[in-house]
């Protein structure tokens, strides 16, 4: 479960120190929304939004994980995978509305506390099931197939080695090294 500390847009700087965060009970993964950014101080990455609300982006990151849940893949890669929606939204008001409305709809369905307030993946997935035929869901899922799995940085997590020509192929690097048969 992700704990989010939300700050109002006029508070320009992220003033919560790491120590303060921990004091507030935020052990483990933390996503912080500050100004126009989603920040993970624990893992030293942040994502600035330009068109979408940062809260929307934080929820989108959770939606992305719920669609393709890989427990061994850190949030950072899900954030990278969905940031294209912010870029598209900046150029295309219709796309901005699609995403903002889609997330708002999920939050509404989730009730008090919103989508991110639902503690169990099953609860969130039940909501996603309800909307899986919608253009919003299709846009998010369809985009993720490429934007998540085509990140070279995640390949090693799945044991995929990628490009091999520059290393001379696998002729001397284990193309036939299976031992358990």
């Amino acid at each position, binding site marked *: 479960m992700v704990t989010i500390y939300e700050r109002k847009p006029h508070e320009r700087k992220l003033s919560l120190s790491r120590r303060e965060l921990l004091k507030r009970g935020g052990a483990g993964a933390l996503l912080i929304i500050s100004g126009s950014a989603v920040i993970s101080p624990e893992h030293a990455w942040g994502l600035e939004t330009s068109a979408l609300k940062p809260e929307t982006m934080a929820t989108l990151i959770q939606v992305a994980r*719920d*669609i*393709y*849940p*890989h427990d*061994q893949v850190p949030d950072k890669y899900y954030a990278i995978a969905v940031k294209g929606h912010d870029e598209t939204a900046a150029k295309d008001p219709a796309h901005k509305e699609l995403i903002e409305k889609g997330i708002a709809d999920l939050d509404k369905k989730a009730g008090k506390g919103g989508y991110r307030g639902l503690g169990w*993946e099953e609860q969130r*997935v039940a909501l996603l099931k309800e909307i*899986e035929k919608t253009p919003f869901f299709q846009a998010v*899922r369809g985009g993720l*197939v*490429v934007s*998540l*799995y*085509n990140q070279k940085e995640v*390949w090693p997590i*799945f*044991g*995929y*080695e*990628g*490009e*091999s*020509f*520059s290393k*001379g*192929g*696998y*002729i001397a*690097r*284990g*193309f*036939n*090294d*299976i031992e*358990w*048969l």
Partner: protein
Amino acid sequence: MAAQFDLKNDGVVVIIGSGAGGGTLGNELAQKGIDVVILEAGARHEYEDFINDEWDSFTQLAWKDKRTTSGDWRVAKDFPNLPAWIVKSVGGSTTHWAGASLRFQEHEFKTLTTYGKVKGANLLDWPVTLAEMEPYYAKAEAKMGVTGTNNWPRLPGNNNFKVLKAGADKLGYKECHTGNMAINSVERDDRNSCQQTGFCFQGCKWGAKWSTLYTEIPKGEATGHLEVRPNSMAIKINHDASGKVTGVVYADKDGKLQEQKARVVAVAGNSIESPRLLLNSESSKFPRGLANSSGQVGRNYMRHTTGSVYAVFDKPVHMYRGTTMAGIIRDEARHDPSRGFVGGYEMETLSLGLPFMAAFLNPGGWGRSFATALDHYDHMAGLWIVGEDMPREENRITLHKDEKDEHGMPIADVHFDDHPNDTAMRDHAYKQGQALYAAVGATRTFPTPPYPSTHNLGTNRMSEKPADGVVNKHGQTHDIKNLFVSDGSQFTTGGAENPTLTIVSLAIRQADYIAAQMSAKSI
């Protein structure tokens, strides 16, 4: 030195497409001293330009122009605008193909005779037999360096093959080996041997896999009789009052329309583009399109009965390492109707990288069931099913009524409904594939639906009688003597085998015929 021919030169043979059919025909004719212009829609990327990255390579090589789909096949739902995974680049789909080079079986040239009439299928015997094709198969195998022929050793088996072989042994299959592959197992033809790199589908950066791009085409160019004109999209074939074809209108690299005059035209744009071009060449003399007096142009579209089975094991496999398709089980390729279907299928090793596995394992799938399959990517093995599908008149390529491409040419619609025989065969193959992996200890298996079609066949089929098809046994259209079809669209039926070897063999044979007809002045 590559030739350069004038647009007004009406003595040349114009070939549309530079893949297995067009590239081979072009070289064979050039070797005989015949002047040839190949119009290729795509750009020229040499093998050092190929990219070991699935999406980047797809962007570089694939035919991405919009097409539409209809029918009950799952591809129409999953990939409505990408019915086929084929190539727009010099070398055509021989840049992308896996290299599997199998001869048809004797009965596959005589399916109507062997299978009898099948309801809802438009079966027909080929006007050629295996015996007639054998000398050309032998020439093609020698040209392409097919392993397991001409004393060339087979490729060594990779991890994915070893799993397949272990399962084949458990199930009692007898004919399982690393295939007959047009991939050098030893250095030959001034090309490298296979370095087990994987990425066979992304273009072989070693040049070890046969492709017209770096075999037929440069050899033809060296004769001074062949010009390959890239970025040249054929739009229409012109004819004169007598009905003979006279030239090809194409959009050049700047999108400007040009006409290359021709003595002979050979269409080799693969089974979607070839009928599209013939249909788009309609005229007052040929209102249904060129060579279409039978009404069969675009019909009988076949795409092989395909599917994949992937399996997860409790220990690592690393299936993506090494030659992608060097592994085959042939036992199910026989015709044995006791299995509940006519014809047969091959099982061949296959792997996809993580990005394409995510796109193709279960298109549209999401959630834990999907994600946990990918979690075990490096513990996966996989095989591809490729079997004979039934030709059906209503499975066809048509010109879209409204949508046009950037050159104003109607885009192609691809309609396909699975025949019950196709479905029965696929289900049988899924069961066998899943049993095979279970026998080696798979903890989970995935019957994976067909990908966008790589084997596109039959839309200008060969027939003895002009009423039954589009071309005769030499690929010459029944209606127009100097118009030929030189790709897989000639196939009367599809066989269970990967089609490239047969396309190349037909092209070698067709070159002999065209040369003879030209010297006899009959074309």
